[in-house]
């Protein structure tokens, strides 16, 4: 009985449009505006945020292992090991940071409803990410040529593990970005509904923000 009366009350509750209807013909004053019970973030956004937290912990483990060997070594890099190309990687760092800027500009273009600009800026982001990967691949070929391999020393192992995992993440982000770019071309994202674009941008910015830390530790420290 109590349940049915509660249900009736809920059914009888005025909708937002009824509550806001002007009552010039008398009657009770209008009820206060009904607040829409919208969540603060979508489930996908929250899931990607948690995923990025797990990714950050994964890279923290790798950096922790690097610190043990780097701080524990008297001489770094170890003798008879090739030096890493810091200048070329600095240029590569700027390229990757620029890709985060173009991604941000793409998000802003979507918020303004400028679809063509969104597609253009996503294309630029993908191109910059691909250039970063190509330069890194070239670096790796050079280092392998100079004798730095995964099994040559702990220096090589750490370099290829940390930088390799980051490159794999950039590649994953690039694939995701290409999917988002194709969806943007189909007009799937609007000013109100763009969670796919937003989460891809979150992942991209995470991968980009991680790189200066890895560059500073592995290449410069």
């Amino acid at each position: 009985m109590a349940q049915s009366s509660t249900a009736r009350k809920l059914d009888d509750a005025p909708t937002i449009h009824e509550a806001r209807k002007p009552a010039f013909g008398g009657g009770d004053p209008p009820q206060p505006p009904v607040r829409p019970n919208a969540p603060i973030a979508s489930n996908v956004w929250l899931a990607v945020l948690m995923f990025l937290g797990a990714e950050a912990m994964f890279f923290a483990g790798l950096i922790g292992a690097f610190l043990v060997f780097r701080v524990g070594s008297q001489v770094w890099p170890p003798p008879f090991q090739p030096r890493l190309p810091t200048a070329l990687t600095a240029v590569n760092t700027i390229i990757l940071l620029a890709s985060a800027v173009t991604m941000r500009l793409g998000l802003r273009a979507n918020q303004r409803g400028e679809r063509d600009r969104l597609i253009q800026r996503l294309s630029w982001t993908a191109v910059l990410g691909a250039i970063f990967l190509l330069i890194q691949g070239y670096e790796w070929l050079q280092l392998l040529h100079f004798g730095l391999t995964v099994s040559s020393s702990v220096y090589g192992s750490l370099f290829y593990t940390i930088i390799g995992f980051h490159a794999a993440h950039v590649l994953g982000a690039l694939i995701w970005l290409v999917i988002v770019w194709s969806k943007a071309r189909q007009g799937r994202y609007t000013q109100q509904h763009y969670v796919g674009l937003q989460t891809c941008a979150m992942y991209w910015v995470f991968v980009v923000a991680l790189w200066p830390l890895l560059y500073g530790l592995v290449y410069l420290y």
Partner: protein
Amino acid sequence: MIKKIPVTLIAMGFTLLTKPAVTWACSVCFGDADDSITAGFNASVLFLMATPYTVMGFIAGGLIWAYRRTKRQRERMESAQSIAPLAWNQEDSGR
């Protein structure tokens, strides 16, 4: 199952007391305090201790940002719809 707990605890205590020190699992129970490898472990431990707080801080910051953004949007929406109560008040004003 409950009856086995004291036996298990005794067995564990006996194992811990009788095993040789070389099998201890603590990874930093070797070397001098000034050793470079000890310094390396210390740096790594401090970094890994700080990381979860940093990650949780970022997640909390993201949630606060999302809450404030939703609140701003809600306020903007409500201010755009406040024309209806004004129309009702017009009758009271006698104009």
